[in-house]
């Protein structure tokens, strides 16, 4: 990173710290003024006469412009810059060597990225594993299996560090010693969701964390769709594991299609609301993932059928357990239903369910049993 770009990056960082400054407005104001430094100077200078105080940018209201002006006067650019340096957060602009995104094919690239962790630059091959935060045990299990398998084949796993599918895939890939890239919607020092704090720290230490938001940025709602487009841009293939009919992962799918990335979906039970989105994608012609090899083939890393890593479904269980296992669905069955289906005594069913759970054939999710 050259000295010139350093100062430029400092003003980019300061600009992104303004309220409501999304990637589109950032690109617009920088283009309007011919550079980040110029844009910042314009904001800090006294407003000239006329509407918007001389700052007329599409999509920016006069009141937002005046908010920017007052905030810009408070922000100390040098202090903000040294804070990023102290936290070992790199601030990258498209002119940097380590810029991870291929801007030529991106309809809507970021103007600045904040990153931390040893995996610099673009990682390839990379697969994004995305899905619902409110996932089923089945979904998380598939995400973990894929994450672990891809890691074993040297494929980088990109995801959003969210609860549910994202976290499950990244945790499994990390534990398998794989390379993991996380793209987050808040500042790199604002851990969200808190439940994934450990994963967040591990990715920062052994993989790479990317964000479009400077340190201290809150996880605002509108940042997540924007974050999803970066996930799509960083991956060669996007795999959707579970998504409800209107899930946020569908944003990632749209972004991936705009960037010519291959989108694949994991089929699920047609009765499960968490698989409605993915099953619909499959109907629309999206490539299905029935095993790890399907993803590897899409990456050009293998050919179908030569991988036997996906666990055989309906794995062998002892005779007395099989009957109970049969009564458990993939998308959740209550204990009472299992008792009713098997017709066995309550204590027997409870004992066998525990035995199946400790052998990982089923899992207890909020009091519902789901098959793995």
């Amino acid at each position, binding site marked *: 990173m050259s000295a010139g770009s350093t100062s430029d990056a400092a003003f980019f960082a300061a600009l992104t710290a303004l309220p409501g400054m999304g990637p589109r407005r950032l690109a617009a104001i920088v283009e309007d003024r011919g550079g980040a430094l110029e844009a910042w100077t314009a904001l800090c200078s006294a407003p000239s006469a006329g509407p918007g105080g001389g700052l007329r940018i599409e999509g920016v209201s006069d009141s937002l412009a005046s908010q920017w002006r007052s905030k810009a006067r408070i922000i100390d650019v040098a202090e903000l810059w040294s804070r990023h340096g102290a936290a070992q957060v790199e601030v990258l602009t498209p002119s940097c060597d380590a810029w991870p995104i291929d801007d030529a094919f991106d309809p809507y690239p970021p103007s600045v990225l904040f990153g931390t962790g040893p995996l610099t630059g673009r990682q390839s091959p990379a697969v994004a594993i995305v899905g619902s*935060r*409110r*996932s*089923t*045990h089945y979904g*998380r299990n598939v995400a973990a299996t894929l994450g672990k398998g891809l890691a074993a084949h040297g494929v980088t796993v990109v995801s959003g560090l*969210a*609860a*549910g599918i994202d*976290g*499950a895939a990244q*945790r499994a890939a990390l534990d398998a010693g794989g390379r993991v890239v996380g793209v987050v919607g808040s500042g790199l020092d604002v851990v969200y*969701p808190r*439940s994934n704090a450990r994963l967040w720290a591990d990715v920062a230490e052994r993989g790479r964390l990317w964000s479009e938001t400077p340190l201290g940025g809150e996880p605002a709602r509108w940042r997540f769709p924007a974050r999803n487009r970066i996930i799509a841009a960083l991956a060669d293939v996007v795999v959707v594991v579970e998504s*409800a009919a209107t899930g946020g992962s569908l944003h990632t799918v749209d972004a991936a299609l705009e960037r010519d990335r291959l989108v694949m979906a994991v089929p699920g039970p047609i009765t*499960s*609301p*968490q698989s409605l989105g993915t099953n619909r994608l499959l109907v629309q012609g999206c490539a299905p993932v029935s095993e790890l090899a399907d993803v590897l083939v899409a990456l050009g890393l293998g050919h179908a059928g030569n991988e036997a890593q996906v666990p055989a479904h309906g794995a062998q269980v002892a005779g007395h357990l099989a009957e109970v296992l049969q009564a458990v669905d993939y*998308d*959740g069955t*209550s*204990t*009472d*239903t299992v*008792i*009713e289906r098997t017709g066995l005594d*309550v*204590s*027997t069913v*409870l*004992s*066998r*369910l*525990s*035995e199946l759970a*400790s052998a990982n054939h089923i899992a*207890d*999710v*909020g*009091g*519902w049993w*789901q098959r793995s």
Partner: protein
Amino acid sequence: MLAVVSSATLSGIAGIPVRVEVHASNGIPGFAIVGLPDAACREARDRVRAALMSSGLDWPGKRVTVNLAPSGVRKTGSSLDVAIAIGLLVATDQLSVETLAGRSFVGELGLDGAIRPVNGILPIVASLVDTEVVVAQSSVGDADLAPDVTVKGARSLRGLIEALTGEAAWPDPPTRAVGSRAMDFCGADLADVRGQPLGRLAVEVAAAGGHHLLMLGPPGSGKTMLARRVAGLLPDLDDHAALEVSLIHNAVGVSLPRGRLIRRPPVRAPHHGSSAVALVGGGSATLRPGEISMAHRGILFLDEMGEFAPSCLEMLREPLEEGAIRVTRSQGSATFPAEFLLVAAMNPCPCGEAGRPGWCRCSDRERYRYGRRLSGPFLDRFDLRVLVQRPAPEAVVDGASGEPSSDVAERVARCRTRSSERGFEFNAAMPDDAMDEFAPLTQEGLGVLREELARGCISARGVQRVRRVALTMSDLAGAEGPIDADRLRTAMNLRAEPSKLLAAVGQ
């Protein structure tokens, strides 16, 4: 002249014997009560004056001082009225001093001279051992339940004086109603519960082993219905417990059923808006027992537990451990017994549908906040934590009715008998160090526990609780010998981890 009359007043749930000393002398006419009376007690002056005049007795034109000894203890309420009136009559020579020997007087006076009942007559009379106690005629039934006292009733001050001087006979004691003694209250019957095999088992185990029970489930799944049926499974209270329970209930003004001790375990179901004082006891003017003490030897049912103020729930931790609660206020402190079976029901999240993947309408933040309301140490007190699901519609409409409460109660009673043979009232009361002696495990069973500990599915403290539940299940089944792996697995399943039940958000 001086007269000393024995009486008693109520503090918390215990009676305090009080010596009422009445001194009448020449001087400027006046009437003063000293010895820490509260407002109701001080007003006795006006009631006594009117009652004496209505009864055709003389109000002395003398200087009268009434001292309530011990004078350092605060006296509350109107239970000393009769004693003050009698003392005044003796001090002014309208009644002979012999009538006071071996007698105590407890009751409130009306302005017309009627003797009225007071709250807590049973604990008050119980504190007056070895005397004959005169109480209002209508509370003779309750007062007579106290051991080691003779109780006499009086309807009015005039009647009392006539009985004391032998001019008239004491009124006859009220006739005691006869009826079936056992199961005079069992509430609702388990036969009405259709389906719900897991819930039924949990309720049975809770009653048999005295294990605190937490039921989670969506609205309309029958949590409350099940909880209301726990009381019907518990055995009758024994004499000692019945007296304890009756004392507490009588102290807060509950008249005892048909003049007998309370024999059925009480059920208390405080509303989730209840204050901490309402739950654990206290109060500014008088120390009153709270709901947890009213549930002593019975059931405290917290419906919609997630809606209780977290600080109130945390206050239950100490009594759950100690079996008693100590309340301290500026006027002193009181210890109320509070050994209860805690039965709680709540939704797994604010909308109630959490758990079933994809059905919940709450945001992650809402669910997180809801789950945070209950602390880990508090949830740890529950030996049984089960998820109750809505029964299938067919089961509700056409299902056969379940096993009736009477059959289940028989098994529960057998199980409790086995516990008492071991020296504990129920299995949940068994201390950790007795576990190896009374609840040994098979090798396989040990293996299962070790495995689950290693997987992090159970805590070290959880192990002991699971063992107790397994012992109760084994007792219910009438099994002998060490506890096997199957039983432990079942017990573990009845004690689901709260993290799985409450915040089923991602991983």
